[in-house]
């Protein structure tokens, strides 16, 4: 958590990882941050791993925090 907080506030790229086996398509990451987490037609995020630019880092964190399955991690 603390490293997430640091990265969210510092102007750095963050790496987003979604665990497909934990994702059940709630689509709440997309509701918070559609630019970071596009979804397929069933509501599953199409992201498995991606590098997010600093200006979207805060949004990426919101999307990860919204996941009811905790399927998204920021590194």
């Amino acid at each position, binding site marked *: 958590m603390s490293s997430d907080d640091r990265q969210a506030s510092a102007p750095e790229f963050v790496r987003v990882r979604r665990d497909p086996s934990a994702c059940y398509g709630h689509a709440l990451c997309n509701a918070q941050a559609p630019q970071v987490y596009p*979804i397929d037609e069933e509501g599953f995020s199409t992201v498995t791993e991606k590098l997010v630019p600093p200006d979207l880092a805060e949004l990426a964190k919101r999307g990860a925090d919204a996941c*009811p399955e905790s399927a998204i991690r920021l590194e």
Partner: protein
Amino acid sequence: MIPLELDPPASLAYRKLLNLTLSPQASKARKPYIQDLVTECLDQVCESGQMDVLHDLTGPVTATLTLAIVGMPASQGRRCAQLMHDMTTIFPGSPEYNEIAQDFGKLLGEIAALVPERRAEPRDDLISHLATATIDGRALSIEEVANVCALVIAGGVETTASLVAHALRWLSEHPEERQRLINDPDLIPSAGEEFLRVFAPVAGMARTATTRTEIAGAMLEAGDRVFLMYGAANLDPAAFDEPAEVRLDRFPNRHVTFGVGSHRCVGAHLARAQIEIILRSVLARMPDFVITEAEPYPDLGMGNGFATMKATFTPTAGSPAQR
């Protein structure tokens, strides 16, 4: 009942079919229709200055929308709303309940009767999607189609209606918070999530443990039946800061009102769209509404909603089309 207690991978085929009409995109595409339904309902009561929240607004909106998704005519919306409400508020086993159950059977019969024609000339509705699908290489029977539709109706109508009713009552009792939403309607989606957390309309759901596991010191064996209390989990102080407090901007808000995992509510996106649109419309058109009467269900064991709810407000003119 399929697919309520079916597990992946078998349940996935049903889920994919349901997703055709209930996915985030499909739900978003329904927003104008939902707005029309809400506008129509509010037009009918706005000049009188009073409304029966369940019968004039939440029931007709949720039921008419659900029937549209199933592929039934909008004219059946109010009948369906009344049926689902009565099934929840009247005790099973009583003569009245048996009558209601029969009526619901009749509605399912009408759905079943549509299956052959939708099979021949499919539309973009659930009956058609189910009627033309093959699962494990075979077509669904008419009865299976009707049963899945029944589940969607049971899941989609009284639940969302109860949630909105709870939200309206809470807002009536908290005028400052209501004013906050009126001033900042962008807060409505987040407020909707918080209402979902504190007023979970389905208190819990029974599940079967698939493997030996330990939960909070309790051992479960494979095959054990467990009752998952969503309403209680949503008040877990380990998961939510000050869980008893209603915070309209709470975030994150990982409530389990829709369930979690592969069985999470397939209609969640549509529920959220309705909650947002109904609250937005009521706050815009009757911002001073007061809930004057709110009688909870006679039994709050499984569902958490209201038997009756009345509101008054300053009368307003209908929308332009109505005048």
